[in-house]
């Protein structure tokens, strides 16, 4: 296997998927390069899972195409899957097999059994492999899938809301596992609702809404697209600030003025307020949550 840094692991081109008359994906474009952790965020029903299932070749694209490692996601599914590890959000296992048996089954289907890594991960995730799956809680079933995934030597990890059932301690272990894979140069596609997790782990983020990728880029790039929250205290009262382009949600409380400003109008604002003798200035870069909200909230946004 030759590895070229920066080559495309995943390439989704104008992907459309319809179920009957319902359009689940409406022209999705997405690229993930090697060694990159890509975060896919979006509300329920936006198309995250459909995108992932199409990548896995278990749904067939209505039009457009999806390729992984340069191979067609539908036609070459088996070849692709030899180098992919997948963890679904809702893991359902066979009630009368033990967790250990299921992990070994998943590893066995790949053909390689990494006993040492498996046992290390069992310990890290604190999972009892001798229990029958019917007795596992949601979090424990998720651990089974996570252990089977991280114990494999896959080149791309596809994780669909993998931590929805984990406690904060296990969530941390999970993050360590992802970073470890990233450091090994493996690619990760992480779909998640936990934005702090995405912020911490992901190099690039794509926001999906109503079957379309509405925004994609590094967190820094995305931040430029949104507003910065500022609060300013000046000696002289600020005047005429409302007239400056790009100011929103202006409020004044006991001499402290707070507002949001479009990132690209920042220079104008700063030069304007400088004239009123600034005593104190606070600015908060937008959080992923703000980005998220701006794209989802139908009434909000620009």
């Amino acid at each position: 296997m030759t590895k070229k840094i920066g080559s495309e692991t995943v390439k989704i081109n104008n992907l459309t998927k319809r179920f009957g008359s319902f359009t689940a994906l409406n022209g999705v474009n997405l690229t993930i390069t090697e060694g990159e952790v890509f975060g896919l965020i979006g509300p329920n029903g936006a198309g995250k899972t459909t995108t992932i299932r199409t990548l896995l070749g278990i749904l067939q694209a209505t039009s457009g195409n999806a390729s992984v490692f340069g191979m067609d996601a539908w036609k070459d599914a088996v070849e692709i899957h030899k180098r992919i590890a997948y963890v679904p959000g809702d893991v359902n296992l066979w009630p009368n097999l033990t967790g250990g048996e299921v992990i070994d089954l998943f590893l066995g289907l790949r053909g390689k059994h990494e006993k040492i890594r498996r046992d290390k991960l069992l310990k890290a995730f604190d999972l009892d492999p001798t229990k029958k799956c019917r007795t596992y809680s949601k979090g424990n079933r998720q651990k089974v899938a996570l252990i089977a995934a991280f114990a494999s030597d896959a080149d791309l990890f596809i994780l669909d809301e993998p931590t929805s059932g984990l406690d904060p301690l296990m969530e941390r272990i999970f993050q360590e596992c992802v970073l470890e894979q990233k450091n090994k140069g493996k690619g990760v596609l992480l779909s998640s609702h936990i934005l702090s997790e995405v912020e911490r782990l992901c190099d690039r983020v794509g926001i999906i809404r109503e079957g379309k990728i509405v925004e994609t880029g590094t967190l820094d790039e995305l931040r430029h697209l949104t507003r910065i929250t500022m609060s300013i205290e000046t000696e002289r009262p600020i005047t005429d600030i409302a007239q400056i382009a790009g100011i929103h949600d202006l409020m004044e409380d006991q001499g402290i003025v707070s507002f949001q400003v479009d990132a690209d109008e920042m220079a104008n604002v700063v030069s304007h307020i400088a004239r009123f003798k600034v005593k104190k200035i606070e600015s908060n870069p937008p959080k992923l949550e703000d980005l998220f909200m701006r794209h989802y909230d139908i009434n909000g946004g620009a």
Partner: protein
Amino acid sequence: MRGSFDNSLNLTKLIIKRERLMTPLWIIMLVLFSVGIAVGMGDMFPAEARQALAETLNNPAMVAMMGPIFGADNFTIGAMYGTLMMLWIVMTVAVMNIFFIVRHTRADEERGRVEVIRSLPTGRIANLNAAVISAVAINAVLGLLTSFCLYIINVETIDLAGSLLSGAAVFASGLLFAAIAAVFSQLSASSRGAVGYSFLALGVFYMMRAAGDINAEILSLLSPLGLVQRSQFFIENNWLPTIVILIQAAAVFAIAYTLNAKRDLGQGILPARPGRSEASKMMRSQFGLSFRLVKNTLITWLIVMFLLGASYGSIMGDIDTFVSESEFYQALIGAVEGFSTAEMFTSMVNSIMALMAMIPLLIIALKLRSEEKEHRAEVVLSGVVPRINHLAGYAILAFIASLLLQLATALGLFLAIEAVLPGGTTLGFLLRANLVYLPALWVKIGIAILLTGLLPKITSVVWGYFAFSFFTVFLGRILNLPNWIANLSPFAFIPELPVDSINYAPLTVLTVIAVVLTAAGLVFYRKRDMDY
């Protein structure tokens, strides 16, 4: 598409591991049943009795139910076994295969297990293929054991050639129904749908055979059930039906594979209707929910019972033609003077229909247990619902359903008889003849409720008891079972109108037993832990 079958063998191993209990149990029960009957027939029927039976059975009603009587001239034990039993053995094997295939294909897919499997380097068809390989193995073991055991019991005329063919026929028809279930698992997006359509197919094949055996043989040949009977086991030992069924199975499997390779995971091919966006007023209560959950089952079965009643009723016309032609049958009718042929026949149909009604009734009575296993009962119980009401709701539904089902049967019979034989019977008589079975049905419901409350792990035992009743009633008409065995089933105490007259004492006792069982079940349920 490369590697569509990759990892099939590993997945087959997984299926076999998961099936380590269930399938061996099915196989043992099936072999014990089919071989046990053969031994029993050998012991209980001397030659003259068999010959008399062959003549008794050779009438349209019995032919509709059991199939054509082959080898009636020399009704050997083998001929009797092949003629009367193979149909039922094959149908039971079909049921096993339907459940098996759906369990490992659509049901696993519905639960999201196939998704993980498919994300691994397994072929697109590998999961279905593994289920099919397992089915071939299971049916092969079943067929071989059937052949082997039939041969070694050393019953006269149950010879090697016939035993081999019987096993082969079991193998082939098991696979055909596995294939049918595999196709419906692709077509329907739910395991319920897949099982439902497969059973519908089995039912249609049975009816085709019934209609075909009476007056249009082509229908029987088109039905695998009719076809397999034409093997004439232990008489002609014709291998052609078995070969044809094997070819049909292969063709149907090919359809299933093709559909599976083309379709999206989790999707069916038959459309699913959108549901309502708001709960109806009726459903916003615990009882309303329970009703909603069993409504479709109940409606389906009411239609099934009505249609079955009607189809039995519709052969009344032929019965009279037959009676006028057969001195033997006239003699038989004369023996119970005062009753019309139609009435005699309905008395038998009624007992069979009451047994059929047990199926939906047990599904309803055991519904809470299945809700509990799927962790849905706890959501309801966490609301302001007293526990006892929850189970009582299903019990009440089952009791109401028992009444409705019996009414549907009576009505179906009445309308059909009225059409073919005007004035042949009265609705009042049919109502009495069917409703008289209610106490026996209630006892079974009571047992289901008691098990739910007391021994939730083994509620399915009641299905075994149902099977027992089925065979005592059904085979009791053909074999002379000892009384004490027949009396273990509540159905033994139900008078068969109009031959018997209504005796209220046993009916009252059965009703009291049913009430006590149900009440005990409710009390135990209130006290016990949730159990998954």
